[in-house]
């Protein structure tokens, strides 16, 4: 208690004297940066996810062939979730004598729960967002439907027994990309009119859907709660499985964001460890004096720890204020991306950042502070006696443990944790060893250079271990900054590639074998590159290894649904360019043996099926048995037709097949599609442009956010390196005053200090370039599924950045030291 009272009294004095300013700034900086990045990752992560969720127009969708019992709506309400109902079925509508097939979509008030519907008031006119559904008695329809029946906005359509007025043209629905089965143009109406149509009755192919959305936690709680009680007739669909493409983009963005969080954490760790060292070092004289005056070990340690904690609290408080301000500014900048009803992150980012800074502070400063207790009191008489260096295992272990714990809580991704932490340890060790080597060789060169360089290099060499530690700190800081730059560039490039301008933008469905030649002719004669056709045979899976699919046990629940549903089988001679073989072998091009089948990775995982298992299908009343020969991964980004089950050539020859194709049709070539539909009315054309636009929108927003986070982290990183240099300046201040007192001209002393920084900066830059290249390669290939290309520019950038940042911050720090009059500095010297 005595120690505590004493600590607080003298802490006030230390604060006033500016002793602790550097460590305090490091803590403030760390809290502010971590808060801002944490806030951004939360906002942007949720915004991107939300955008991907729009594909479902909800967070969850319950689908059924029968009306969905009210109990589910009640249950959703219990979880404070919003719901909307949807009824959809194909039907024919009439406008006068003209008729056309449509997918009728009747919705209730809240539709869509996620995203917005866009309509226009006339064909091909300006579109706008609406936040309501068609009024009773009105419908909103696809322009294609109007074209087919020759009607316009304002006309009346006969839908079953009801007469409904066309009030608008639907140009966009968030969920238009799901359910490729609904090929016909849609008609959106109010469920209030449903009864009047008289279309719902026995035998009609009506599907029901309950849309559910709300706070993320409630949604997942609801999701967990219903898993067990879901009857077979109900099928749950989450956004994740509905939009692989949008999710692939969102997922990468989130990984990048968490990488950024990791990096700001590491930068904070560097800043805090550097200034904590200094904090402990500067207390050594005071501790020796206090011990000579009769203070016990326990007392000096308690005082030091109490002060560390007090400092932590002040830093955290000030950092939170700065962090909160940063949050405000950032949300203002990113207002466009993160608008909407995202749940307020509340104090979570600040709490997390504050906790992290405290853990870092304790992890890095504690070992040195505890070691202070062993400072020999003899130091008051012999200034060269030092406490024994704290055990490296203790220091390393504690700081590593601190960083690991924080990384895990902030990232929660063990793969990334292992890669980043392992990489950091290896790089830090390499930096230290090479740093010491460099420091030793630098000393040798000093006889061959001018006085300034001799002084600078001699300094680097003399402070062997300290210099090496500085190289480690600068080097680590630079490594993560370079890494961030690299990954960001790779990431954005990778995205751009997946969205390359040649990506197919139309699907053709329901092409008969006999039509393929004619379709090719239509496109060729109009200068459009004709598509490749993929065959499609509908089948049901009956037996797996001779056992009924219904009786089998599967590793994942979703498997039950998969094996029971109608399967789209295809065959292929060669492996599609959008597929990657994971296991087994692809059949030779001229294969004509017994039927083989290649299955998709997720299917293999969920069903537990693998090479050698046999599947039996029922196709149009006939049985077909095929042995699994390979497992594939599908790149859903490719926008090519892909199938979970692909059979060997010839296996499906005897069965009725239709063909599907994807192709790129530019705007000015669209006339070809009109001709196609006219000549082959049964072929359906699906326009992917709007879906592509949706995905592109997600990626653009995500990449903009990624850039914002990137620049923020970069700025914080540079500030940290500045702080690190500042913390080494004390000694230099004293030395340069002495040199000047001895008559050295200012310029010489200054050049000497700069030479020292240049040497350190270059060493750190070289090492950081090497470290970042390796880490980036690992991250790109292991985590982001992006190809890594070596970039020699990185080395130039690394060394240049090392020189620039270290010299610039050294310049500012040294300038003040050198410009102060020698006498001031000498007076302030120990004693």
């Amino acid at each position: 208690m005595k120690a505590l009272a004493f600590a607080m009294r003298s802490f006030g004095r230390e604060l006033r004297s500016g002793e602790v300013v550097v460590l305090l700034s490091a803590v403030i900086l760390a809290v502010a940066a971590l808060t801002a990045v944490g806030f951004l990752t939360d906002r942007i992560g949720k915004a991107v996810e939300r955008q991907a969720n729009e594909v479902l127009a909800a967070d969850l969708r319950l689908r059924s062939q029968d009306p969905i019992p009210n109990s589910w709506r009640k249950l959703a309400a219990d979880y404070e979730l919003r719901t909307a109902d949807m009824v959809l079925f194909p039907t024919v509508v009439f406008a006068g004598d003209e008729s056309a097939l449509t997918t009728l979509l009747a919705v209730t008030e809240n539709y869509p729960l996620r995203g917005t519907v866009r309509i226009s008031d006339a064909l091909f006119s300006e579109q706008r967002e609406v936040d309501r559904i068609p009024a009773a008695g009105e419908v909103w329809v696809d322009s294609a439907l109007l074209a087919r029946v020759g009607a316009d906005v304002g006309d009346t359509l006969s839908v079953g027994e009801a007469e409904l007025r066309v009030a608008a043209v639907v140009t966009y629905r968030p969920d238009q990309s799901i359910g490729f089965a609904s090929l016909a143009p849609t008609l959106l109406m109010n469920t209030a009119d449903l009864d009047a149509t008289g279309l719902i009755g026995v035998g009609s192919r009506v599907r029901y859907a309950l849309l559910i959305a709300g706070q993320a936690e409630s949604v997942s709680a609801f999701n967990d709660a219903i898993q067990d009680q879901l009857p077979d007739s109900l099928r749950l669909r989450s956004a994740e499985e509905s939009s692989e493409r949008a999710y692939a983009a969102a997922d990468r963005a989130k990984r990048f964001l968490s990488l950024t969080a990791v990096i700001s954490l590491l930068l904070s760790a560097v800043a805090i460890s550097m200034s904590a060292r200094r904090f402990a070092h500067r207390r050594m004289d005071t501790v020796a004096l206090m011990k000579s005056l009769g203070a016990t070990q326990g007392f000096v340690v308690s005082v030091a720890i109490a002060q560390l904690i007090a400092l932590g609290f002040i830093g955290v408080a000030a950092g939170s204020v700065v962090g909160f301000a940063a949050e405000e500014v950032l949300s203002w900048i990113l207002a466009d991306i993160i608008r909407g009803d995202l749940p307020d992150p509340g104090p979570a980012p600040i709490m997390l950042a504050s906790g992290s800074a405290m853990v870092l502070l304790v992890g890095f400063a504690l070992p040195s502070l505890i070691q202070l207790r062993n400072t020999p009191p003899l130091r008051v008489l012999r200034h060269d006696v030092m406490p024994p260096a704290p055990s490296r295992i203790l220091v390393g272990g504690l700081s590593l443990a601190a960083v690991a714990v924080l990384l895990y809580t902030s990232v929660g991704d063990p793969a990334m944790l292992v890669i980043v932490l392992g990489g950091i340890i290896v790089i830090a060790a390499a930096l230290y060893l090479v740093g010491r080597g460099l420091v030793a060789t630098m000393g040798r060169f000093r006889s061959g250079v001018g006085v300034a360089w001799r002084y600078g290099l001699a300094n680097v060499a003399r402070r062997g271990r300290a210099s090496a530690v500085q190289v480690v700190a600068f080097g680590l800081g630079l490594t993560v900054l370079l890494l961030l730059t690299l990954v960001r560039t790779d990431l954005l490039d990778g995205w751009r590639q997946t969205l390359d301008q040649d990506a197919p933008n139309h699907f053709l469905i329901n092409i008969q074998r006999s039509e393929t030649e004619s379709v090719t002719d239509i496109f060729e004669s109009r200068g459009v590159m004709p598509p490749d056709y993929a065959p499609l045979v509908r089948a049901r899976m009956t037996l797996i290894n001779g056992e009924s699919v219904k009786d089998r046990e599967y590793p994942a629940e979703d498997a039950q649904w998969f094996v029971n549903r109608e399967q789209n089988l295809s065959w292929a001679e060669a492996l599609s360019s959008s597929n990657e073989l994971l296991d087994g072998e692809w059949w030779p091009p001229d294969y004509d043996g017994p039927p083989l089948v290649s299955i998709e990775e997720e299917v293999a995982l969920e069903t537990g099926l693998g090479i050698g298992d046999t599947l039996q299908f029922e196709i149009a009343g006939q049985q077909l048995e095929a042995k699994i020969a390979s497992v594939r991964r599908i790149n859903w980004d490719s926008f090519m037709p892909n199938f979970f089950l692909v059979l060997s050539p010839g296996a499906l020859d005897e069965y009725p097949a239709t063909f599907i194709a994807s192709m790129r049709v530019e705007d000015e070539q669209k006339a070809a599609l009109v001709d196609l539909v006219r000549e082959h009315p049964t072929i359906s054309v699906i326009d992917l442009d709007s879906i592509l636009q949706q995905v592109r929108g997600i990626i653009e927003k995500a990449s903009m956010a990624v850039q914002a986070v990137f620049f923020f982290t970069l700025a914080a990183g540079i500030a940290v390196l500045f702080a690190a240099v500042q913390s080494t300046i004390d000694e230099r201040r004293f030395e340069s005053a002495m040199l000047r007192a001895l008559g050295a001209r200012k310029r010489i002393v200054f050049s000497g200090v700069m030479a020292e920084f240049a040497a350190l900066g270059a060493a750190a830059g070289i090492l950081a370039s090497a470290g970042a290249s390796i880490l980036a390669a690992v991250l790109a290939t292991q985590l982001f599924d992006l190809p890594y290309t070596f970039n020699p520019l990185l080395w130039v950038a690394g060394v240049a950045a090392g020189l620039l940042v270290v010299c610039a911050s050294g310049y500012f720090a040294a300038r003040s030291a050198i410009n102060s009059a020698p006498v001031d500095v000498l007076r302030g010297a120990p004693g």
Partner: protein
Amino acid sequence: MSNDSGDSAVLAAHSISKKVSSPEGSLTILSDVSFSIAAGESVAVVGPSGAGKSTLLALLAGLDLPTAGYVVLNGVNLGELDEDGRARARAEGVGFVFQSFHLVPSLNALENVMLPLELAGRDDARDASRAIIERVGLKERWSHYPAQLSGGEKQRVAIARAFATEPAVLFADEPTGNLDTRTGETIMELMFELNRKSSTTLVLVTHDNSLAGRCDRMLSLDAGKLVADTQVAA
């Protein structure tokens, strides 16, 4: 005054030696030094540079331990105490004045004086310190930080700090070594005066023969050995 180790002895060295290991092998800094100092006595430790004077002082104050022999301070064998025990012994009965002052740069003059009182848990630290800082003539400068004080002023603060706890023994290692002659003289004047008034035992390491001559007794060291123990005629 006597030099036997009777009950009146406040400080006694019993055959203390100090060896350190150096790259060139073991080095003997002090060998077999014995003496005892009575309460109230003022003793000068003299000898050429490198003779082992500071080393002896450190051992007497329990800042370091001898490799052989033992020191008894205020009736306690320092060799039997652990580091914290020795610190407590210092807190209770020892004051220091150093050649290089050793003020805490982040504390002002008054706070520096308060430090040992606070460490001893005294509630009246501030008032007691004010009184003594006035006695060393720094009444107007109490709020100044060490960097704002001259060498002589710093040493006055150090002396005030040393006397603040009214220690039984005051150790001073060349307290005037960093000061010019005139300032040195006034500082020593101040020290002897305070010493007289508080009847503290003074152990003073010095190169200055005239200073040594003002003490009751003179211990001469050379190459780690006690070569002379002389009573100085008053």
